[in-house]
């Protein structure tokens, strides 16, 4: 009890010592008076009595000091006083304080923001039980090992292999597989809705260690051929489409399978068995439902396994390799590996994270160098103050502590400001990283798990830790240098400039600061420059189509009719769209550019199919089924011949349009127009009537591939690829296309009461979406490079400006002796640029080493792209020139008389 009481009181006296000091002084005075009285009574004279009293009491100051030690906590007391002093010092120099805090806040903020990403992606486990035990399979075969002579990489296992693994593996406690995405149209509940889901082996939920929130997860009963159709919904889908109805279990949901392999488009009733808990996502938030994969011995999917406790991933991979090789006679040489699920998520973004982490570390280093330089410059102004304090008995340790307290305070304040910067940064990153939640676009997320990026307690702890380290880093050098001044020297009434020159102004130190800052900033500038250059190249690449003023959407139909009916419906929609005011052209197609659905078909010059038919390989060109105005809507240029016309109807001669790449490949040196070719399994000829410009179909960074186009009207309806999968994409060209959305909806409703629009986007948005990843990397690194360059510029300015004030006298003498202004400018600039050039050369060297991490992020550039390196050097040199010219000019205004007199 009394220990606590004492501690509290001592703590209290750290902060409030005034009253206790006064009380003590009064008590001591009273004590002395009483002693004097006593000595006087013993017969001493008043003077003698006073002396005797003082002797009896002992050294008053020492006693008071010990009283303070007892009364409060000494070290804390000192720290508190240092802090108060530091606050006063910072307030006295608001300009310095603002610049220093702003500089460090940028550095700390950038680091904290990137740490929040690293934290969300690398450090946090996936939201599954013991997620580090979850593994995926990777089987790789080189071309030589592979039976198809093509290098292969697959994680697929069959149902038969799964059951073998389950019964024989001692290293995997659970095994299942994911069979791939599935699209369903939910009907019979108002406007029909398209849902994205996942076909899985029912054991997936057990493997993930997750139970249903309502109802049950799939069980072994569903792992059988011909099991009744069942479905499990995500929490979000349950809330959105069923209003969170707890009685959903057992209900029947009518779903039309849009990926049905047979041409029959049937609606089936699925019995709901459960709803997964809130926050459960597998494999990501886009998946709204799960259904069992088909269960025949050869069907299967990508293995998902859980390691047995304490089993290493290598041991499991070795065992699995044995099991699989036992079953796959043609894969005896294959390399069987397991990778953690978390690694599969972060692997694609690792290089980018490495680059960004290095970048922000550089920004912080530059900020530290700047602030250390500011502190050094200020330190020289405080030489006398420090000298006096040392002369009055402050120890060296005490002075270092005092100075470090100041820089720590500075850094912590910057940490607060930096957290605000980081908050803004994470918002920006989430905006940049957010893409359309559409599987059909196949766009790689800039960052996976983007919704988890944010500022939480761990991230804030990081900001605090960074601040403390920063404070020590930039405070240490000035503190050590300053605390060791020559007392006598400093107390002499020397001019401030000369006293300062001893500590803060040694030329090699200043040069080193400039060289360091320049080198770091140059590396960032080159890196950011490469990414921006690459992004610009990508964004301005010849795509082959004109995405402006094009609206795209899909239609969900309740009763998906067989192909011909759907085609009539699509024709009706396009026909009515064309009548809308402002619409120039309208079309529908099986895919649009940037839709990641590839269909290929055989393309040959003779009617006979080779026997046996060749495997579907990349040699088969991309086959596109489009409606009449497709080329007009998308602005695809017809290079030769014509596009599809009104007369190319079902009964008329069948015509094809090929792209330039296919024309070059199939008809080298010939005119393709008028040639007859055969496509698909069909043995009737097609005549080539047109050649269109190449289109970058699957992404701006992917080279055009051979393609041919056919008109829906002429494609044989019996062909199994016709209209059996995803509904078509509609595209409309016109002015102000976004205003067409409600009218398009009306048209669709008018044709079928419960039809709805989905995947509505302008073509521009799709293009922009496809660039989100490179855009994000270029933006982030560009911002960091920009900050680094500005900070380095400010740093150079600071160093040179300080050097000029230091050399005022020297410059004055030179000018008195007849030096011209330009000679003075040359003197200052020459020194500054010499350092800058050394820094640039070092920075270029460093960049050449570091930019190889950018390799996978660059389009159309090598990491050693010479123009970027040159441009970065020139840019930085110009900035350094400006930063040192300003103080150089000021130097020329030195009045020799004033400069000499000031001595």
């Amino acid at each position, binding site marked *: 009890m009394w220990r606590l*009481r004492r501690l509290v009181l001592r703590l209290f006296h750290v902060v409030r010592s005034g009253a206790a000091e006064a009380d003590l002084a009064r008590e001591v005075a009273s004590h002395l008076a*009483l002693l004097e*009285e006593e000595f006087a009574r013993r017969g001493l004279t008043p003077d003698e009595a006073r002396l005797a009293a003082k002797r009896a009491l002992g050294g008053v100051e020492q006693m008071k000091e010990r009283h303070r030690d007892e009364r409060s906590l000494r070290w804390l007391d000192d720290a508190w006083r240092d802090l108060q002093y530091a606050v006063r010092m910072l307030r006295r120099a608001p300009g310095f304080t603002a610049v220093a805090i702003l500089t460090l806040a940028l550095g700390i903020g950038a680091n904290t923001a990137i740490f929040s990403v690293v934290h969300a992606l690398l450090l946090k486990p996936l939201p599954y039980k013991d997620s580090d035990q979850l593994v995926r399979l990777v089987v790789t075969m080189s071309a030589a090992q592979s039976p198809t002579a093509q290098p292969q990489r697959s994680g697929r296992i069959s149902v038969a292999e799964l059951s073998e693994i389950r019964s024989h593996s001692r290293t995997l406690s659970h095994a299942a597989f994911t069979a791939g995405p599935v699209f369903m149209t939910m009907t019979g509940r108002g406007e029909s809705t398209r849902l994205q889901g996942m076909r899985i082996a029912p054991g997936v939920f057990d493997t993930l260690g997750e139970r249903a929130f309502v109802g049950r997860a799939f069980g072994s009963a569903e792992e059988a051929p011909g099991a009744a159709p069942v479905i499990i919904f995500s929490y979000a889908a349950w809330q959105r489409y069923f209003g969170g109805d707890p009685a959903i279990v057992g209900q029947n949901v009518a779903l039309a399978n849009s990926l049905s392999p047979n041409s029959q488009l049937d609606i089936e009733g699925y019995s709901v068995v459960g709803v997964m808990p809130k926050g459960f996502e597998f494999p990501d938030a886009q998946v709204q439902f799960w259904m069992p994969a088909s269960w025949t011995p050869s069907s299967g999917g990508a293995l998902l396994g859980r390691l047995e406790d304490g089993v290493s991933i290598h041991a499991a991979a070795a065992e699995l390799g044995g099991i699989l090789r036992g079953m796959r006679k043609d894969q005896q040489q294959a390399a069987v590996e397991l990778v953690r699920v978390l690694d599969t998520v972060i692997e694609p973004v690792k290089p980018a994270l490495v680059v960004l982490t290095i970048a922000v570390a550089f920004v912080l280093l530059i900020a530290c160098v700047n602030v250390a330089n500011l502190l050094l410059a200020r330190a020289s102004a405080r030489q006398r103050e420090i000298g006096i304090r040392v002369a009055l008995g402050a120890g060296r340790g005490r002075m270092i502590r005092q100075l470090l307290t100041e820089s720590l305070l500075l850094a912590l304040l910057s940490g607060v400001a930096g957290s605000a910067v980081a908050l803004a940064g994470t918002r920006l990153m989430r905006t940049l990283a957010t893409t359309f939640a559409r599987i059909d676009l196949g766009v790689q997320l800039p960052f996976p798990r983007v919704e988890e990026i944010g500022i939480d307690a761990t991230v804030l702890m990081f900001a605090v830790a960074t601040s403390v380290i920063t404070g020590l880093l930039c405070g240490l050098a000035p503190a050590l240098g300053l605390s060791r001044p020559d007392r006598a020297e400093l107390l002499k009434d020397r001019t401030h400039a000369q006293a300062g020159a001893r500590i803060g102004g040694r030329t090699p130190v200043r040069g080193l600061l400039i060289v360091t800052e320049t080198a770091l900033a140059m590396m960032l500038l080159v890196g950011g420059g490469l990414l921006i250059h690459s992004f610009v190249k990508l964004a301005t690449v010849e795509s082959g189509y004109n995405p402006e003023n094009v609206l795209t959407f899909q239609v969900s139909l309740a009763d998906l009719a067989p192909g011909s009916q759907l085609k009539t419906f699509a024709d009706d929609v396009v026909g009515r769209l064309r009548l809308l005011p402002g619409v120039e052209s309208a079309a529908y197609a099986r895919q649009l550019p940037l839709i990641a659905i590839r269909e290929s078909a055989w393309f040959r010059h003779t009617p006979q199919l080779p026997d046996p038919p060749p495997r579907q390989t990349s040699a088969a060109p991309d086959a596109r089924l489009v409606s009449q105005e497709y080329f007009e809507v998308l602005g695809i240029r017809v290079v030769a011949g014509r596009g599809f016309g009104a007369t190319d109807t079902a009964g008329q001669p069948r015509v094809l349009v090929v792209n330039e790449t296919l024309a070059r490949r199939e008809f080298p040196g010939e005119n393709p127009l008028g040639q007859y070719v055969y496509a698909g399994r069909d043995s009737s000829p097609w005549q080539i009537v047109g050649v269109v410009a190449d289109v970058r179909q699957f992404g701006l960074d992917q080279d055009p591939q051979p393609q041919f186009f056919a008109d829906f009207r002429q494609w044989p309806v019996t062909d199994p690829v016709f209209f059996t999968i995803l509904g078509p994409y509609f595209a409309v060209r016109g002015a102000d296309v976004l205003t067409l959305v409600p009218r398009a909806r009306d048209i669709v409703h008018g044709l079928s009461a419960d039809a709805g629009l989905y995947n509505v986007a302008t073509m521009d948005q799709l293009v922009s979406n496809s660039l989100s990843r490179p855009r994000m990397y270029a933006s982030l690194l560009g911002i960091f490079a920009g900050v680094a360059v500005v900070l380095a510029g400010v740093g150079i300015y600071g160093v040179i400006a300080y050097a000029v004030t230091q050399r005022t006298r020297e410059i004055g003498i030179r000018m008195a002796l007849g030096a011209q202004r330009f000679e003075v400018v040359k003197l200052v600039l020459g020194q500054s640029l010499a350092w800058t050039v050394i820094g640039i050369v070092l920075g270029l060297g460093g960049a050449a080493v570091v930019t190889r991490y950018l390799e996978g992020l660059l389009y159309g550039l090598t990491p050693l792209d010479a123009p970027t390196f040159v441009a970065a050097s020139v840019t930085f040199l110009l900035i350094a020139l400006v930063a040192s010219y300003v103080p150089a000019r000021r130097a020329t205004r030195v009045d020799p008389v004033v400069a000499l007199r000031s001595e």
Partner: protein
Amino acid sequence: MSSEPSDRIELLQGTLDLIVLRALATMGPQHAYGLAARLEQVGDHPLTLNQGTLYPALVRLDQKGWIKGTWQKTDSNRDAKYYAITKAGTRALEKQTERWRKLAGLVNKLLLGETS
């Protein structure tokens, strides 16, 4: 913490505290000078103790809540801070005295045992 020569009275941490508590318990409220005078009477060598050394002990005891200081007038009508032992102080004194006796007895035994 202390750099005092080691033959001073308060070399044993807590000893001085015990003596002050004891003095206050037997004499009633006292000011620092009064306490010092009392200690000098008891000690063999008057004035070996700087009277100022009392103050750290007083603030320590005060913060522990064992004594309480109030400003009062002396007989000669001077202001002086009078310290009185509190209830908690009385209890602590009993405990500390007991501990001290035990310790002293033990030390005595050991010392006697060594010399014999």
